[in-house]
């Protein structure tokens, strides 16, 4: 082990440490608006990574996540509003319900051997159905929506300042990156990768493809629903089109795509790149124009690296050294 190697590593560790300190102390320097924006960015890192477990690692076109988000948000909020149960408990109830729905839909669809595309559209069909149901139920407040009384306090998962949400989002994002790293290196991760690359071959060597896809679906659904609870406590207002929003899943997949499907850091990189661009454009450009520029950015990045940024960067690093 040479001196330069040690020095390089020392440099990297120092940079890493400086980064962590910067992230931890950033909220005190930011305005409420930017703290809230960063909380949303962390939430999207969390959601994209949760989708990445089933969509990226198992390579499935799964569009059910708006339903999971809605379930998590509505369940915990309703439990809190009607029965006074803390969202910290309610989020697990929502998560378990999401797992139930996801596994039932998944079980029906996987068993009949639906092609990817049909499955994707069935998911979108279910999402439409869920929105309509949320509109017509009395308990969800229908189109009037659901207001959550602001009552700051750690027990209610509400924070007096936006910095609290920033830290909460940060914890969620850090947690999911750790979990993804673990899954990628575990047996499940390798099985999912095998299923993604060739489902027939995977099942031929004895992998229970339906079972493992269901496990991935359950993990993903549970985590997404918990993110939904956090979302509800952040915005404090739910109505069907915003809580069960197909655009949310499109952006989640977009972030994964830009970063690279199936890689642990892909969703993180994609979200960190695109969401700030989107926010800045929205702040400083004429309404409507910001989406045009955003769309152009997306198309250019995809044409530039059709595999996603993380695999492209890995290839580049390998070529260099």
């Amino acid at each position, binding site marked *: 082990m040479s001196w330069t190697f040690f020095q390089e590593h020392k440099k990297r560790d120092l940079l890493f440490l400086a980064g962590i300190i910067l992230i931890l102390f950033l909220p005190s320097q930011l305005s409420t608006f930017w703290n809230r924006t960063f909380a949303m960015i962390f939430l999207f890192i969390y959601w994209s990574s949760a989708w990445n477990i089933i969509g990226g690692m198992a390579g499935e076109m799964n569009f059910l996540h708006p339903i999971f988000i809605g379930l998590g948000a509505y369940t915990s909020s309703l439990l809190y509003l009607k029965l006074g149960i803390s969202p910290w408990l309610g989020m697990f109830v929502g998560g378990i319900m999401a797992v139930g729905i996801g596994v039932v839909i998944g079980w029906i669809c996987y068993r009949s051997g639906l092609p990817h595309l*049909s499955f994707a559209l069935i998911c979108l069909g279910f999402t439409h159905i869920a929105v*309509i149901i949320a509109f*017509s139920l009395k308990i969800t407040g229908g189109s009037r929506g659901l207001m959550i009384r602001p009552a700051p306090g750690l027990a209610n998962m509400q924070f007096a300042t936006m910095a609290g949400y920033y830290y909460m989002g940060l914890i969620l994002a850090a947690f999911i990156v750790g979990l993804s790293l673990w899954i990628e290196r575990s047996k499940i991760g390798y099985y999912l990768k095998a299923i993604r690359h060739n489902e027939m071959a995977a099942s031929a060597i004895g992998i229970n493809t339906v079972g493992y896809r269901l496990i991935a679906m359950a993990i993903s659904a549970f985590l997404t629903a918990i993110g939904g609870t956090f979302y509800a406590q952040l915005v404090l207002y739910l109505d069907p089109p915003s809580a069960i929003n197909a655009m949310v899943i499109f952006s989640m997949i977009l972030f994964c795509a830009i970063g690279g499907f199936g890689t642990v850091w892909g969703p993180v990189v994609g979200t960190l790149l695109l969401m700030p661009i989107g926010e800045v454009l929205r702040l400083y450009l004429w309404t409507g124009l910001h*989406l045009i520029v955003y769309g152009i950015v997306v198309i250019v990045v995809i*044409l530039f690296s059709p595999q996603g940024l993380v695999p492209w960067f890995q290839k580049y690093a390998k070529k260099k050294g």
Partner: protein
Amino acid sequence: MLGSIYGLIGLGITMVFSVTGLMNFAHGDFMAIAMYLCLALYTRFNLDPYISMLLVIPLLFVMGLLVYHFLFQRMIDAELLMVIQMTLGMVFIIESTLQILFTADYVNVPNFAYGSRFIMGPFVMSGSYLVTFLIGSSVGVALYWMLQYTDLGRQIRAIAQNREAAMLMGIQTHRVQMIVFAMGIALLGLSGSLTTSIITLQPYMGLDFTLFAFIVFVMGGVGNFLGTLVAGFVLGVAEALGALFIGGHMGGLVPYGLFVLILIVRPQGIMGAR
């Protein structure tokens, strides 16, 4: 009676997918472009949408050629989800442009058949629905004939079956793919002009059309031309019946519910083969 139009939109997607393997989520937005073009021609020159159709269709054909050449051709071997994301970027661009140019107001474009009513037994039918239905289904039949009995149609089917083999047989796959993509877009020009008086215009409607088209595409059996047309009719009828007998939010459930049911019972689609 919108069934024939759903069939046409779906047919565009089926042709493009089976020949190029591309999924275009901006498909419905090109229809929105066509409809807004009709609106512009109507407000500026007082042209009836049925006449401006003759202008809109070639325009969209050219637009399809350009978009394919500059964007889609590079993505032909990329992962499907990547293509979908790129087209979603196009959705952002098109919808916001339409919104800036035409504002987000709801508008309708009348045509000469708009006010007239036809009474057939117990049913009352607006004239523009009848025209839409007649033109839509005849174009559907014509397209089907084209696919079965012309050289271009045979080439399209050959590429859909096996792209490499078709290439080895001396078919200029690239040219055919480009033409097919442009034809898919031109079909939207037709359906857009026909439906301007029936569907209320709104800049963000494109994605809804796209979803419906994909549902038709999958329900008919992926890559099956006749199945797509049939599925379009089925969905159109389901939507009309749902609105008639149930109404409200729940009526909107009928087409989606039917779609989910059909796919669970018959995963390969109405006319698809295993």
